[in-house]
């Protein structure tokens, strides 16, 4: 099992960042790589089990299923059903924690998956830096401009 962990500090209160990231259909609004997204079957985006079907700007299509969403402790988990990445058993969790001595929050994004031998490093880099850090950077930029 490959494990990836990326974390950062965002200069905005946790509830404000959570309002953006809790929308399971909202990737195009806050990630630099997602072109469009829809929830399959017209389900609500916060229904556990909902499947988001989204297209990357480079054309790749992913389907991800919402496994857990908690407005109480600002976290959600999802799995990949289909993707061009070549990963299996992929489960990721995104979690925000308030930093109480400032209007900031601590954001963590972790994933576990299996992949073909030899691709671990490349996929860790792609997911940890390309996807998670890339999206964090966009959130930080949004917070900076707000």
């Amino acid at each position, binding site marked *: 099992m490959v494990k990836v962990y990326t974390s950062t500090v965002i200069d905005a209160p946790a509830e404000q960042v959570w309002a953006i990231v809790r929308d399971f259909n909202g990737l195009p609004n806050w990630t630099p790589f997602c072109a469009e997204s829809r929830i399959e079957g017209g389900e609500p985006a916060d229904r556990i089990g909902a499947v988001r079907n989204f297209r990357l700007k480079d054309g790749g299509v992913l389907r991800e299923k919402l496994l857990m969403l908690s407005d109480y402790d600002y976290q959600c988990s999802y799995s990949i059903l289909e993707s061009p990445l070549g990963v299996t058993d992929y489960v990721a969790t995104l979690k925000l924690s308030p930093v109480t*001595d400032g209007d900031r929050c601590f954001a963590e994004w972790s994933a576990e998956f299996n992949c073909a031998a030899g691709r671990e490093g490349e996929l860790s880099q792609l997911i940890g830096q390309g996807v998670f850090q890339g999206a964090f950077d966009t959130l930080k930029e949004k917070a900076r401009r707000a």
Partner: protein
Amino acid sequence: MPRIVRSTVIDAPVAEVWRILRDFNSHRDWHPAIADSVIEDGQAPDSVGAVRRFRLTGGVVLREQLLSLSDRDFALSYCILDAPLPLFGYVAHIRLRPVTDGNRTFWSWMSDFDCPPEREADMVRLVAEGVYEAGFGGLRRTLYPLGRGQGEGATRVGMFGKSATLSPQPSPQRGEGANAIVARAYGPPDVLQWTRVLVPPPGFGEVTVRHTAIGVNFIDVYCRTGYFRLLQPPGVLGMEGVGVVEDVGPGVTGLSPGDRVGYACAPVGAYAERRTMPAALLVSLPDDIDDETAAATLLKGMTAEFLLHRVHPLTASETAVVHAAAGGVGVLLCQWASALGALVIGVVGSEAKARVARAQGCAHVVLASDDVAGRVLELTGGRGADVVYDAVGRDSLARDLAMLALCGHIVSYGQAGGHLEPLDAAALAERSARLSRPNFGHYAGTPAQVRLSSQRLFDALRRGLVRPLVGARFPLREAAQAHRRLEDRASVGATILVP
């Protein structure tokens, strides 16, 4: 039941903060409200169940018990046993998390307790402000007694010790001179001479760098003796330098005078106050990597990077033997390999070096004078090591084979003890062994490779996976002395020359 949660971001790597907090009695050193504290019954301060009895600066005495401690999650829990305060069923949790995009730590401190409603507001304030927030400030002052910005946007320099110097100098006169260490001929350290050399102005694609720290590597010895023909005497030694760009030639993009840079590569020429060299060979140094850290780790750390990630991608389930475990590359290999989760067995030449190696992440240390192969087999239950990192040379490969697990990998990356003796390749079949003989230039030779490798290294430094260990500093003009120590096997960690 009130629940209190307080959290902050500390401008230090998680390992550094945890090293302090995991000691259940350390609060007397960093918490401003604690007058004194002892662990009862002589228990170790990291044994679960230990009780600390402490007195606040106001005179009140409390007893608290450690309920859980996890080095895996950087977390601990404790409860109050006795306190002259209405805090009932008080259980607190401290948890650290690394902030991976910056070398920082998220610290959360929370608790649940019961108390009479009329005292609740007081108790909440006492715990939240008097204990948790005051503690955050106290730890910060302990870590940075001279004061330092915290949080995003603050200037963060000298993350690994000494502050980075950033003092752009006026451009020198064209073709100005500099002092340098020149090898007059191939031979012993005595051939090294403090000499005035001319530094040419930067040509197309070149820059002139004023060095602030220079790394000494065993490859410099090979260059001096002529074992590697990378230098034609008389010539300036050295393949690792850090400094400030002084002058930029035509056609150079992305570098300006005043920029902090480093390099770890041929051509030789680092043992000089300044030099002119191709800009493409330089790595820009991030603000949080200070000069000495870079000079201590660029060449050795990129070597460790490709040995652990590309020559033999080491996994957590493997056992690695590291020869010369207290040496320049050795300590970084031990730190990084153990951070990757591997079991590391270090081989060293003396008891003093064994202590160094243990502190750098070796689970076991074996003296080179012992039966190393026998000890490795014993320590691995007869299985042997999955990989042996060996820069000893001479007849060491045959010994490595004897301590190898089936299908194991011998990685021979140096020959500090002398030229490698011929090895009968057929012998590798005894263990279905693989043998690699990597060359630094093939793994960190192109700008793209250097970028990848140095970024991995800087990332590992930020995350505290590797820490520079500078064993000795010499003035540049005493380079011969630095070489003697290296060849006498007297050195530990990295050796730095200071111009």
